[in-house]
């Protein structure tokens, strides 16, 4: 009986606190400002991305506000942390929906984005997922270049260098599977042969066997389609096997912290297909993107005392694009905002130049991708 009473008391307290929370939540976009919810992984396994994404989003809001805002209204960022967990992403997204934010920027990773998508599918608001790994539709957008373009850019670069036989190592998770399919498809299109392939679990601590499987096909170069630690494990295995082949990996590894971590095991040639924020300095001074890129990189460096990597760029552009759509729509009505965002054409961001449509909720293309090399703790442009 005591247990039942205690349970009841807890239940009543929880109900009371929930009611209080519901009463206190009013519309966050209050007529004076537009509130954008930035739901990213500030803690947990994806925080390497999320922390930078939030910084990028805040920097973009500051930039828009400094230029007078949107029709006199300021952008206010309401940050939420999904702790790198899809269930928390859903919980936090629900809170942001209660707060009636104009748009949700985030989450950071595929799993959380897929978990949030159904919440906004029919009535919005616009949800700008910061992971490139989803197929955006309805009210959802996806940041950065798509996997097919990245794979094509990478293989095309190698083809120009005479490399036509590649080995493919990929992880068994969603990102690795998608990447492997994209490499296969791009290789067929470009006439590059995938001579051997092997998969490995993202938590594997040794992939010696898989590497042997890949080298058995005598490739001229190896693609490692994985992100983070599994790439480190693969690079270490490649070094231990004494292989001196060029290696290519994915844009998810365009992180300064990760580069430092693998410094002693980086192959002589480690290439990554990257968006414009990593090679903008190669553009002619007359290019319309140069001013925006310089301003973004300088301000980020000054504010955070480091160069921006993958996360800040996508966070910055997402807020910039939502702001442009708000300006065009003249309101934060979800339908109007979605329509305005779909009409964005030739809009400059730091990741690339965006041209959206009702069927293209990403807006970037192969022209926004070039190849950079991880070298001496930096990413250096090597070509297209």
């Amino acid at each position, binding site marked *: 009986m005591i247990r039942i009473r205690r349970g009841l008391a807890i239940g009543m307290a929880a109900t009371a606190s929930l009611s209080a929370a519901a009463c206190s939540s009013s519309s966050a976009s209050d007529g004076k400002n537009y509130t954008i919810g930035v739901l990213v992984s500030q803690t*947990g396994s994806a925080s390497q991305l999320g922390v930078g994404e939030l910084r990028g989003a805040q920097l973009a809001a500051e930039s828009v506000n400094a230029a007078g805002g949107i029709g006199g209204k300021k952008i206010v960022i309401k940050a939420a942390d999904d702790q790198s967990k899809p269930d928390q992403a859903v919980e936090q997204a629900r809170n942001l929906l209660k707060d009636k934010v104009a748009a949700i920027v985030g989450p950071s990773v595929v799993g959380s984005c897929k978990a949030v998508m159904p919440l906004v599918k029919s009535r919005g608001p616009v949800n700008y997922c910061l992971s490139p790994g989803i197929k955006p539709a309805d009210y959802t957008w996806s940041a950065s270049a798509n996997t097919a373009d990245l794979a094509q850019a990478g293989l095309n670069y190698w083809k120009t260098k005479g490399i036509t036989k590649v080995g493919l190592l990929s992880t068994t998770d969603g990102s690795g599977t998608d990447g492997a399919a994209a490499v296969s498809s791009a290789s067929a299109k470009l006439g590059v042969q995938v001579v051997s392939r*092997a998969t490995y679990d993202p938590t594997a601590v040794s992939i*010696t066997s898989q590497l042997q499987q890949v080298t058995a096909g005598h490739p001229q170069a190896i693609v490692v389609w994985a992100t983070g630690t599994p790439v480190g494990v693969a690079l270490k295995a490649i070094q231990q096997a004494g292989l001196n082949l060029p290696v290519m990996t994915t844009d998810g590894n365009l992180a300064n912290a990760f580069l430092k971590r693998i410094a002693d095991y980086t192959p002589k040639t480690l290439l990554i297909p990257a968006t414009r924020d990593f090679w903008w300095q190669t553009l002619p001074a007359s290019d319309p993107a140069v001013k925006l890129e310089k301003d973004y990189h300088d301000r980020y460096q000054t504010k955070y005392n480091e160069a921006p990597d993958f996360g800040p760029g996508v966070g910055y552009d997402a807020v910039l694009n939502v702001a442009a759509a708000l300006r065009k729509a003249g309101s934060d009505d979800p339908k109007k905002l979605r329509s305005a965002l779909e009409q964005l054409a030739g809009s400059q961001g730091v990741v690339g130049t965006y041209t959206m449509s009702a069927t293209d909720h990403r807006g970037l293309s192969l022209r926004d991708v070039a190849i950079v090399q991880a070298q001496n703790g930096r990413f250096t442009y090597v070509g297209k």
Partner: protein
Amino acid sequence: MRDVAETVIGGLVVGSVYALIALGMSLIYSMSKVINLSQGAFVVLAALTGVSVQHSLHISGPALLVVVAVIFAVVLAVVDLAVIRPASRRASPDRMLLITVGLLQAVGGFLLLRWGNLPYTMKPFTHTAVVTVLGLRLSTQFFWVLGVLVLSLVALWLLLQRSSLGLKMRATAQDPQAASLMGVDVDKVRLIAFSISGALAAVAGVAIIPLTFLQYDTVVPYAVDGFVAAVLGGLGSSSGAVMGGLLLGVVQGVLQRYTNASLAEILAISSLILILLLRPAGLRGSLAEVRR
């Protein structure tokens, strides 16, 4: 042929870590009937502790093995005193399993808090990282991992078979009540078993980290594979733990070499089920343990 030999040696190296985890689990199980699923987590914790100690003290690989082994002998003794012993007086074995799962999660959480979500590694113990033996290209760290397993086995055998403490431990494993009536301090013997399992986790973690990258979320695969190795060998059997660990490592390596990773995982677990159907007590366990 060379390809097969390299695959098998790679499998033996990974299997050595499973064997050391299974050895620690088996030792604890035989003394206290607790299946310590967190044993694999302590391997990763020890490895990252090793990285931090190495960063501060710049000591040699063998010295690092000793330092971290001592630290984790103390850590696991504290775990026994603070968690396992009080809990086992109140909880049934199935509840104890849950408690060790909780410990596994707690260690993973601590790793994330202390070392963040970045992967860690260390340079090989020997300056020459790779050697060629009989035409096979092998990492020198392979020899350290295999050597650590052999040394641990010899030390454990000497302790159990050639010392009075070992006699007490064997008596406790056989019948704790009878051992207690004969004047054996069973709690102390169990505390020592936990300390030894901590040292085993430590040497496994420190020896393997130069070959890979470890981080907070690698605790689960080690915990699962170590447990599979222990069951495969026969819980409570030291020789079985080693056989189970090495066999699992080689089977995984060979399957991963000739199939894809997902299929290899299914085939590895299927072969485990098949072995347990044919030998329910595992390779070296006793049926009495299974029926208990």
